[in-house]
């Protein structure tokens, strides 16, 4: 049969929000295509309870594969096996780092077309067409697949989570991993660097980027946030540089926020950052470059 296979990322007993959005979207598209949406979970000792939760978001079947967590290549092997068994026509991924790696590797494995940063998927003549903003979101291109399997990797927060109240059967799938897929090993996962701060509940966020010049640039932001009764947030670049806490990071591999006021200082506005804050009610950006994408 045909169908849509969605990768569901989980960590410490819970599914990633973007994966749940992708399952919801997969179910919506499958129903429009008159087919089924299946999900695949790879991990160590994934419980029936966890795997079957995906039924509530529209998956009719969940493939459960015993394998290493947090790395892309074992999942490529698992999805190749699931597609061989289920004959899926599309592989769908929610936004995030692993989805990019798995989706691209799977496209190579299956000689399949792949489109990333997808913000919308539509059905056209019984096929899926992916829409992707390009050139700093100045245009949207439509991508048509010309391969047996089409790989769709979405942008962060592209798909809404919808509970359908359905249920899923859980099917164990034995996968023989390729030698190279086991040559990367997780030593430590999910290390939190810097102080644990809560930015998601703040009504006002004062965010800083590389344009602050140095770590001490955040002192002024702390002061301003204090005066405004808000909290301080940061971009990935400054978190990677060690200027601020990971728990305050907005964007692709950080948090998604929608405060009443988002005040951005020295942030150029890369897409990876914007996807995490563009739902803010009011945005004030301070930047030396009037062409910065944040404007």
């Amino acid at each position: 049969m045909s169908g849509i296979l969605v990768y569901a990322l989980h960590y410490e007993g819970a599914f990633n929000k973007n994966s749940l959005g992708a399952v919801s979207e997969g179910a919506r598209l499958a129903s429009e295509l008159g087919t089924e949406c299946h999900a695949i979970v790879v991990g160590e000792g994934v419980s029936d309870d966890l795997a079957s939760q995906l039924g509530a978001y529209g998956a009719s079947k969940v493939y459960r594969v015993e394998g290493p967590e947090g790395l892309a290549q074992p999942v490529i092997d698992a999805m190749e096996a699931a597609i061989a068994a289920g004959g899926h026509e599309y592989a769908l991924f929610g936004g995030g780092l692993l989805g990019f790696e798995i989706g691209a590797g799977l496209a190579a494995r299956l000689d399949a077309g792949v489109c990333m940063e997808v913000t919308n998927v539509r059905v056209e003549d019984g096929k899926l067409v992916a829409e992707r903003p390009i050139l700093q979101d100045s245009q949207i291109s439509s991508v048509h697949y010309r391969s047996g399997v089409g790989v769709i990797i979405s942008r962060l927060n592209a798909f809404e989570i919808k509970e359908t109240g359905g249920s899923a059967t859980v099917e164990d799938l034995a996968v023989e991993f390729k030698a190279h897929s086991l040559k990367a090993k997780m030593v430590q996962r999910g290390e939190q660097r810097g102080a644990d701060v809560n930015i998601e509940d703040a009504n006002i966020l004062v965010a800083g980027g590389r344009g602050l010049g140095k770590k001490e640039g955040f002192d002024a932001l702390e002061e301003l946030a204090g005066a405004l009764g808000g909290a301080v947030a940061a971009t990935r670049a400054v978190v990677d540089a060690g200027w601020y806490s990971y728990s305050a990071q907005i964007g692709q591999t950080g948090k998604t926020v929608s405060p009443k006021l988002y005040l951005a200082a020295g942030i150029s506005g890369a897409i990876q950052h914007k996807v995490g804050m563009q739902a803010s009610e009011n945005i004030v950006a301070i930047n030396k470059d009037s062409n910065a994408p944040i404007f």
Partner: protein
Amino acid sequence: MKICVLVKEVPDAAVEKRINASTGRLDRGGEKNLNPFDTHAIEAAMQLKEGGALSVDEVVAVTMGPESAKRALTKAVSLGADRSVHLSDEALAGSDVNGTGYALAQVLAAESPDLVLLGQQSDDGECYTIGAVVADHLQMPSLTQVIKIDVEGGALRCERQAEYGYDTVQVELPAVISVGDAINEPRYPSLKAIMGAKKKPLETKAAGDVGIDAGRVGYDNARAHCADFAAPPAKSAGQIIEDEDTNETVEKIVAWLDERKLLA
């Protein structure tokens, strides 16, 4: 041991990028430069070579692209690569991610590197995915967006930020690693290196030279076909305040915030 660094020529950051309406491809006219992210990959290769924990015999810059892409290779060599390989063939023009990754994997396979490094994204295509495609073809372990590489017992201990925080991953060689810009501060080439770069070996290869199947590359064989370019929904224009007198600017911003009752 051999490190291959994948590089790409991209439109200069100052050039406004647009799609050529008649071909449906990126208009690659105008000033070009080495993809800024790739300079971090070359620097990472140089630091591994100079660090001494791995015995690196040579660093080879590899690119795929038209004639002009040679300049990106020359730049890569001026930053420290020992020689370069240019995969250039009309048959490759317009390849999608799948085709480009496949073609690059073939030219890399001919080099049999112990490590392939690349930048995490190109400034123009913004796909972040070539590393993963190449790795699957080469059957090598792979990690993208790496911000720290340490050599440990002949393997690489890599750090990167993923969905739930920072991950540390041990990767056996040979491997394909894409690096983020936080990994290092690329050096500036010396005048001597710039002058000498054109004298270093540059090999040009056609698709047939490295056994590329013509049915898997090029615009007509793209598995993902881009079409129907459309303008995104218009966003409401914001208000721009030019900072001529900072006190005045601050007053304007405060008034704006006050109007929206954002000041408690």
